[in-house]
Protein backbone atom coordinates (compact mmCIF):
# COMPACT_ATOMS: atom_id res chain seq x y z
CA UNK A 1 0.00 0.00 0.00
CA UNK A 2 1.34 3.44 -0.89
CA UNK A 3 2.03 5.63 2.14
CA UNK A 4 0.41 8.96 2.91
CA UNK A 5 2.52 12.07 2.71
CA UNK A 6 1.65 14.85 5.11
CA UNK A 7 3.05 18.38 5.17
CA UNK A 8 3.10 20.31 8.44
CA UNK A 9 3.46 24.06 7.97
CA UNK A 10 4.02 25.57 11.43
CA UNK A 11 6.57 28.05 12.75
CA UNK A 12 6.65 26.66 16.30
CA UNK A 13 9.06 23.70 16.65
CA UNK A 14 7.16 22.63 19.78
CA UNK A 15 3.92 22.43 17.84
CA UNK A 16 5.56 20.70 14.90
CA UNK A 17 7.04 18.03 17.16
CA UNK A 18 3.69 17.50 18.85
CA UNK A 19 1.90 17.13 15.50
CA UNK A 20 4.55 14.68 14.29
CA UNK A 21 4.02 12.65 17.46
CA UNK A 22 0.27 12.54 16.88
CA UNK A 23 0.43 11.75 13.16
CA UNK A 24 3.11 9.08 13.49
CA UNK A 25 0.42 6.85 14.92
CA UNK A 26 -1.00 6.54 11.42
CA UNK A 27 0.55 3.58 9.63
CA UNK A 28 2.78 4.08 6.63
CA UNK A 29 2.94 7.84 6.80
CA UNK A 30 5.67 10.19 5.65
CA UNK A 31 5.74 13.58 7.37
CA UNK A 32 7.53 16.65 6.04
CA UNK A 33 7.90 19.86 8.08
CA UNK A 34 7.95 23.46 6.86
CA UNK A 35 8.69 26.38 9.19
CA UNK A 36 6.65 29.14 7.50
CA UNK A 37 4.24 29.74 4.63
CA UNK A 38 6.96 30.34 2.04
CA UNK A 39 8.81 27.18 3.04
CA UNK A 40 5.48 25.35 2.89
CA UNK A 41 4.72 26.68 -0.59
CA UNK A 42 8.14 25.60 -1.85
CA UNK A 43 7.68 22.12 -0.48
CA UNK A 44 4.07 21.66 -1.57
CA UNK A 45 4.72 22.74 -5.15
CA UNK A 46 7.85 20.63 -5.54
CA UNK A 47 6.39 17.41 -4.21
CA UNK A 48 3.21 15.41 -3.79
CA UNK A 49 1.29 15.52 -0.50
CA UNK A 50 -1.98 13.89 0.53
CA UNK A 51 -2.66 16.35 3.34
CA UNK A 52 -1.37 19.69 4.62
CA UNK A 53 -1.70 20.95 8.21
CA UNK A 54 -1.29 24.72 8.17
CA UNK A 55 -0.90 27.26 10.97
CA UNK A 56 -2.30 30.75 10.37
CA UNK A 57 0.04 33.11 12.21
CA UNK A 58 3.49 32.56 10.75
CA UNK A 59 6.38 34.77 9.70
CA UNK A 60 7.34 35.40 6.04
CA UNK A 61 4.01 34.15 4.70
CA UNK A 62 0.91 33.47 6.78
CA UNK A 63 -1.26 30.40 6.50
CA UNK A 64 -4.21 32.11 4.80
CA UNK A 65 -1.98 33.39 2.00
CA UNK A 66 -0.51 29.90 1.62
CA UNK A 67 -3.99 28.34 1.41
CA UNK A 68 -5.11 30.81 -1.27
CA UNK A 69 -1.95 30.11 -3.32
CA UNK A 70 -2.41 26.36 -2.99
CA UNK A 71 -6.04 26.57 -4.07
CA UNK A 72 -5.01 28.74 -7.05
CA UNK A 73 -2.73 25.98 -8.28
CA UNK A 74 -4.79 23.48 -10.36
CA UNK A 75 -2.48 20.54 -9.56
CA UNK A 76 -2.98 21.05 -5.81
CA UNK A 77 -6.71 21.67 -5.94
CA UNK A 78 -7.65 18.29 -4.48
CA UNK A 79 -5.17 18.24 -1.61
CA UNK A 80 -7.02 18.49 1.73
CA UNK A 81 -5.91 21.28 4.07
CA UNK A 82 -6.46 21.41 7.82
CA UNK A 83 -5.89 24.69 9.62
CA UNK A 84 -4.45 24.55 13.15
CA UNK A 85 -4.52 27.90 14.88
CA UNK A 86 -5.06 29.83 18.10
CA UNK A 87 -7.72 31.97 16.37
CA UNK A 88 -11.13 30.71 17.37
CA UNK A 89 -13.36 33.56 16.15
CA UNK A 90 -16.10 32.52 13.78
CA UNK A 91 -14.98 34.99 11.09
CA UNK A 92 -11.45 33.52 11.13
CA UNK A 93 -12.85 30.04 10.67
CA UNK A 94 -15.21 31.14 7.89
CA UNK A 95 -12.42 33.01 6.12
CA UNK A 96 -10.10 30.00 6.18
CA UNK A 97 -12.85 27.65 4.98
CA UNK A 98 -13.87 30.13 2.25
CA UNK A 99 -10.28 30.21 1.01
CA UNK A 100 -10.35 26.44 0.63
CA UNK A 101 -9.39 24.88 3.96
CA UNK A 102 -11.23 21.60 4.62
CA UNK A 103 -10.96 21.52 8.42
CA UNK A 104 -10.28 24.05 11.15
CA UNK A 105 -8.79 23.09 14.53
CA UNK A 106 -7.99 25.44 17.38
CA UNK A 107 -5.07 25.27 19.82
CA UNK A 108 -4.31 23.89 22.28
CA UNK A 109 -4.73 20.78 20.20
CA UNK A 110 -5.61 17.29 21.34
CA UNK A 111 -3.65 14.54 19.62
CA UNK A 112 -6.80 12.40 19.28
CA UNK A 113 -8.65 15.16 17.51
CA UNK A 114 -5.79 15.79 15.07
CA UNK A 115 -5.54 12.09 14.39
CA UNK A 116 -9.25 11.70 13.76
CA UNK A 117 -9.38 14.74 11.44
CA UNK A 118 -6.30 13.53 9.54
CA UNK A 119 -7.86 10.06 9.15
CA UNK A 120 -11.05 11.64 7.83
CA UNK A 121 -9.23 13.81 5.30
CA UNK A 122 -6.98 10.94 4.20
CA UNK A 123 -10.01 8.65 4.03
CA UNK A 124 -8.42 6.10 6.35
CA UNK A 125 -10.72 3.66 8.20
Amino acid sequence: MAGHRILIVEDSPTMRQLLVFALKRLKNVDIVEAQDGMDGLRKVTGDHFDLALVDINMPVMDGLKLISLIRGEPTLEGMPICVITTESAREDRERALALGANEYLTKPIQANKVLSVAKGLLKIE
Partner: protein
Amino acid sequence: MSNDGNGPYERGQAVLAIFKRGADFMKQLMDDNDSLRKQLSSVEERQEFAAKDPADWEELRVELLSRIRNLEDEREMIVEQLRSVESENQQFAERYLEIEEENNNLANLYVASYQLHSTLNPSEVLKVILEIVINLIGGEMFCLYVCEDGGEILKPVAAEGGTVAEFPVVLLGEGPVGEAVASGEVMSGESSGLPPAEGGEPVVCIPLRVEEKPVGAIVIYRLLSQKDGFSALDHELFTLLAGHAATAIFASRLYALSERKLNTIQGFIDLLTK
Protein backbone atom coordinates in the same frame (compact mmCIF):
# COMPACT_ATOMS: atom_id res chain seq x y z
CA MET B 1 -41.31 -84.39 -30.77
CA SER B 2 -40.05 -81.10 -32.01
CA ASN B 3 -36.78 -79.64 -30.64
CA ASP B 4 -37.29 -76.04 -31.76
CA GLY B 5 -38.37 -74.89 -28.19
CA ASN B 6 -41.96 -74.22 -29.14
CA GLY B 7 -43.27 -77.66 -28.51
CA PRO B 8 -46.01 -78.37 -26.01
CA TYR B 9 -43.48 -79.57 -23.42
CA GLU B 10 -41.49 -76.34 -23.48
CA ARG B 11 -44.65 -74.25 -23.38
CA GLY B 12 -45.87 -76.22 -20.38
CA GLN B 13 -42.55 -75.64 -18.62
CA ALA B 14 -42.82 -71.91 -19.30
CA VAL B 15 -46.37 -71.74 -17.89
CA LEU B 16 -45.26 -73.69 -14.81
CA ALA B 17 -42.38 -71.26 -14.27
CA ILE B 18 -44.81 -68.34 -14.44
CA PHE B 19 -47.10 -69.98 -11.90
CA LYS B 20 -44.11 -70.68 -9.65
CA ARG B 21 -43.01 -67.05 -9.73
CA GLY B 22 -46.61 -66.00 -8.98
CA ALA B 23 -46.69 -68.40 -6.02
CA ASP B 24 -43.36 -67.11 -4.70
CA PHE B 25 -44.53 -63.52 -4.99
CA MET B 26 -47.79 -64.37 -3.22
CA LYS B 27 -45.80 -66.03 -0.41
CA GLN B 28 -43.57 -63.01 -0.04
CA LEU B 29 -46.66 -60.77 0.14
CA MET B 30 -48.16 -62.97 2.82
CA ASP B 31 -44.90 -62.88 4.83
CA ASP B 32 -44.70 -59.07 4.55
CA ASN B 33 -48.30 -58.79 5.60
CA ASP B 34 -47.66 -60.97 8.58
CA SER B 35 -44.59 -58.95 9.61
CA LEU B 36 -46.51 -55.68 9.33
CA ARG B 37 -49.35 -57.09 11.40
CA LYS B 38 -46.90 -58.06 14.10
CA GLN B 39 -45.27 -54.61 14.08
CA LEU B 40 -48.65 -52.91 14.27
CA SER B 41 -49.68 -55.14 17.10
CA SER B 42 -46.43 -54.35 18.98
CA VAL B 43 -46.87 -50.59 18.55
CA GLU B 44 -50.50 -50.77 19.64
CA GLU B 45 -49.47 -52.80 22.64
CA ARG B 46 -46.71 -50.34 23.64
CA GLN B 47 -49.00 -47.40 23.12
CA GLU B 48 -51.70 -48.96 25.17
CA PHE B 49 -49.21 -49.94 27.86
CA ALA B 50 -47.67 -46.42 27.96
CA ALA B 51 -51.02 -44.71 28.09
CA LYS B 52 -52.21 -47.00 30.81
CA ASP B 53 -49.15 -46.65 33.10
CA PRO B 54 -49.04 -43.19 34.77
CA ALA B 55 -45.66 -44.03 36.28
CA ASP B 56 -44.11 -44.03 32.82
CA TRP B 57 -45.75 -40.73 32.01
CA GLU B 58 -44.47 -39.27 35.28
CA GLU B 59 -41.00 -40.61 34.62
CA LEU B 60 -41.06 -39.06 31.19
CA ARG B 61 -42.38 -35.76 32.56
CA VAL B 62 -39.70 -35.65 35.28
CA GLU B 63 -37.03 -36.44 32.76
CA LEU B 64 -38.25 -33.72 30.41
CA LEU B 65 -38.54 -31.17 33.23
CA SER B 66 -35.04 -32.02 34.32
CA ARG B 67 -33.77 -31.47 30.80
CA ILE B 68 -35.60 -28.14 30.63
CA ARG B 69 -34.03 -27.10 33.93
CA ASN B 70 -30.59 -28.12 32.69
CA LEU B 71 -31.08 -26.20 29.49
CA GLU B 72 -32.30 -23.15 31.40
CA ASP B 73 -29.29 -23.35 33.72
CA GLU B 74 -27.01 -23.69 30.75
CA ARG B 75 -28.68 -20.72 29.08
CA GLU B 76 -28.37 -18.67 32.26
CA MET B 77 -24.70 -19.57 32.48
CA ILE B 78 -24.11 -18.56 28.86
CA VAL B 79 -25.97 -15.27 29.38
CA GLU B 80 -23.88 -14.65 32.49
CA GLN B 81 -20.69 -15.39 30.58
CA LEU B 82 -21.82 -13.06 27.81
CA ARG B 83 -22.49 -10.32 30.38
CA SER B 84 -19.08 -10.88 31.89
CA VAL B 85 -17.39 -10.73 28.46
CA GLU B 86 -19.33 -7.57 27.59
CA SER B 87 -18.32 -5.97 30.87
CA GLU B 88 -14.70 -7.00 30.30
CA ASN B 89 -14.89 -5.57 26.80
CA GLN B 90 -16.25 -2.32 28.18
CA GLN B 91 -13.45 -2.22 30.75
CA PHE B 92 -10.89 -2.80 27.99
CA ALA B 93 -12.40 0.00 25.89
CA GLU B 94 -12.31 2.37 28.87
CA ARG B 95 -8.76 1.34 29.71
CA TYR B 96 -7.78 1.84 26.08
CA LEU B 97 -9.13 5.39 26.16
CA GLU B 98 -7.35 6.06 29.45
CA ILE B 99 -4.07 4.73 28.06
CA GLU B 100 -4.51 6.74 24.89
CA GLU B 101 -5.12 9.90 26.91
CA GLU B 102 -2.13 9.12 29.10
CA ASN B 103 -0.06 8.54 26.00
CA ASN B 104 -1.12 11.93 24.60
CA ASN B 105 -0.33 13.61 27.90
CA LEU B 106 3.08 11.96 28.04
CA ALA B 107 3.73 13.07 24.46
CA ASN B 108 2.90 16.67 25.43
CA LEU B 109 5.16 16.48 28.49
CA TYR B 110 7.95 14.88 26.48
CA VAL B 111 7.74 17.53 23.76
CA ALA B 112 7.72 20.34 26.34
CA SER B 113 10.70 18.87 28.18
CA TYR B 114 12.59 18.11 24.94
CA GLN B 115 12.10 21.62 23.58
CA LEU B 116 13.06 23.27 26.88
CA HIS B 117 16.40 21.49 26.90
CA SER B 118 17.02 21.71 23.15
CA THR B 119 18.98 24.96 23.38
CA LEU B 120 21.38 26.89 25.62
CA ASN B 121 20.56 30.22 24.03
CA PRO B 122 18.69 32.33 26.67
CA SER B 123 16.41 34.04 24.15
CA GLU B 124 15.60 30.68 22.49
CA VAL B 125 14.72 29.23 25.89
CA LEU B 126 12.30 32.11 26.52
CA LYS B 127 10.79 31.55 23.06
CA VAL B 128 10.27 27.85 23.79
CA ILE B 129 8.55 28.68 27.10
CA LEU B 130 6.22 31.11 25.30
CA GLU B 131 5.44 28.46 22.68
CA ILE B 132 4.64 25.88 25.34
CA VAL B 133 2.29 28.23 27.16
CA ILE B 134 0.51 29.20 23.92
CA ASN B 135 0.35 25.82 22.20
CA LEU B 136 0.13 23.35 25.05
CA ILE B 137 -1.58 25.32 27.82
CA GLY B 138 -3.59 27.75 25.71
CA GLY B 139 -2.46 31.04 27.29
CA GLU B 140 -3.47 34.17 25.40
CA MET B 141 -2.10 36.94 27.61
CA PHE B 142 0.82 36.08 29.82
CA CYS B 143 4.23 37.20 30.97
CA LEU B 144 7.48 35.43 31.78
CA TYR B 145 9.32 36.90 34.77
CA VAL B 146 12.95 36.29 35.67
CA CYS B 147 14.53 37.04 39.06
CA GLU B 148 17.07 39.85 39.10
CA ASP B 149 19.15 41.54 41.79
CA GLY B 150 19.82 38.47 43.87
CA GLY B 151 16.30 37.18 43.41
CA GLU B 152 14.50 40.05 45.11
CA ILE B 153 12.99 41.53 41.97
CA LEU B 154 10.93 39.75 39.31
CA LYS B 155 11.46 41.41 35.97
CA PRO B 156 9.23 40.75 32.92
CA VAL B 157 11.42 39.47 30.07
CA ALA B 158 8.97 38.03 27.54
CA ALA B 159 5.25 38.38 27.00
CA GLU B 160 2.39 37.35 24.76
CA GLY B 161 -0.87 39.24 24.24
CA GLY B 162 0.86 42.49 25.18
CA THR B 163 4.29 44.10 25.31
CA VAL B 164 6.78 43.38 28.11
CA ALA B 165 6.39 47.02 29.23
CA GLU B 166 2.68 46.42 29.96
CA PHE B 167 3.55 43.97 32.72
CA PRO B 168 4.75 45.39 36.05
CA VAL B 169 8.00 44.62 37.82
CA VAL B 170 7.17 42.56 40.92
CA LEU B 171 8.94 42.42 44.27
CA LEU B 172 9.47 39.00 45.78
CA GLY B 173 6.84 38.31 48.42
CA GLU B 174 4.59 41.20 47.38
CA GLY B 175 1.24 40.85 45.68
CA PRO B 176 -0.18 37.54 44.42
CA VAL B 177 2.70 36.96 41.97
CA GLY B 178 5.46 37.87 44.45
CA GLU B 179 3.86 35.73 47.16
CA ALA B 180 3.47 32.73 44.83
CA VAL B 181 7.12 32.93 43.77
CA ALA B 182 8.28 33.32 47.37
CA SER B 183 6.23 30.33 48.50
CA GLY B 184 7.00 28.20 45.46
CA GLU B 185 3.34 27.16 45.21
CA VAL B 186 1.34 27.43 42.00
CA MET B 187 -1.29 30.11 42.52
CA SER B 188 -4.53 30.02 40.53
CA GLY B 189 -7.51 32.34 40.62
CA GLU B 190 -10.42 33.70 38.65
CA SER B 191 -9.43 35.59 35.54
CA SER B 192 -10.99 38.96 34.82
CA GLY B 193 -9.44 38.80 31.35
CA LEU B 194 -7.97 42.26 31.91
CA PRO B 195 -4.26 43.10 31.53
CA PRO B 196 -2.40 43.92 34.77
CA ALA B 197 -2.18 47.59 33.77
CA GLU B 198 -6.00 47.71 34.00
CA GLY B 199 -6.11 45.90 37.32
CA GLY B 200 -6.34 42.38 35.92
CA GLU B 201 -5.46 39.51 38.24
CA PRO B 202 -3.57 36.45 37.03
CA VAL B 203 -5.51 33.29 36.30
CA VAL B 204 -2.43 31.28 37.24
CA CYS B 205 1.10 31.97 38.46
CA ILE B 206 3.71 29.21 38.06
CA PRO B 207 6.83 29.87 40.14
CA LEU B 208 10.05 28.65 38.51
CA ARG B 209 12.60 27.29 40.98
CA VAL B 210 15.94 25.49 40.93
CA GLU B 211 16.79 23.70 44.16
CA GLU B 212 14.25 25.75 46.13
CA LYS B 213 15.78 28.97 44.80
CA PRO B 214 13.38 31.22 42.84
CA VAL B 215 14.40 31.76 39.21
CA GLY B 216 11.28 33.42 37.84
CA ALA B 217 7.61 32.88 37.10
CA ILE B 218 5.09 32.35 34.33
CA VAL B 219 2.04 34.48 34.98
CA ILE B 220 -1.04 33.90 32.80
CA TYR B 221 -3.67 36.64 32.78
CA ARG B 222 -5.98 35.33 30.09
CA LEU B 223 -6.58 31.99 28.36
CA LEU B 224 -7.60 31.48 24.74
CA SER B 225 -11.38 31.85 24.41
CA GLN B 226 -11.77 28.19 23.39
CA LYS B 227 -10.02 27.08 26.57
CA ASP B 228 -12.57 26.40 29.32
CA GLY B 229 -10.22 25.83 32.22
CA PHE B 230 -7.23 23.81 33.31
CA SER B 231 -7.12 20.06 32.79
CA ALA B 232 -5.08 17.46 34.66
CA LEU B 233 -2.52 17.69 31.86
CA ASP B 234 -2.22 21.45 32.39
CA HIS B 235 -1.36 20.87 36.04
CA GLU B 236 1.26 18.31 34.96
CA LEU B 237 2.64 20.93 32.60
CA PHE B 238 2.74 23.51 35.43
CA THR B 239 4.82 21.08 37.49
CA LEU B 240 7.07 20.34 34.53
CA LEU B 241 7.54 24.03 33.73
CA ALA B 242 8.19 24.88 37.38
CA GLY B 243 11.23 22.63 37.34
CA HIS B 244 12.36 22.26 33.73
CA ALA B 245 11.76 25.83 32.53
CA ALA B 246 13.61 27.08 35.61
CA THR B 247 16.55 24.75 34.91
CA ALA B 248 16.56 25.70 31.22
CA ILE B 249 16.60 29.44 32.04
CA PHE B 250 19.25 28.97 34.74
CA ALA B 251 21.48 26.78 32.53
CA SER B 252 21.21 29.04 29.48
CA ARG B 253 22.04 32.17 31.50
CA LEU B 254 24.96 30.40 33.15
CA TYR B 255 26.17 29.21 29.76
CA ALA B 256 25.88 32.69 28.24
CA LEU B 257 27.75 34.13 31.24
CA SER B 258 30.51 31.52 31.01
CA GLU B 259 30.84 32.18 27.28
CA ARG B 260 31.18 35.91 27.91
CA LYS B 261 33.78 35.26 30.62
CA LEU B 262 35.61 32.80 28.40
CA ASN B 263 35.73 35.38 25.60
CA THR B 264 37.03 38.02 28.03
CA ILE B 265 39.73 35.69 29.36
CA GLN B 266 40.65 34.62 25.82
CA GLY B 267 40.89 38.27 24.79
CA PHE B 268 43.09 39.00 27.81
CA ILE B 269 45.37 36.01 27.04
CA ASP B 270 45.59 37.08 23.39
CA LEU B 271 46.57 40.57 24.54
CA LEU B 272 49.30 39.22 26.83
CA THR B 273 50.72 36.73 24.34
CA LYS B 274 50.82 39.08 21.33
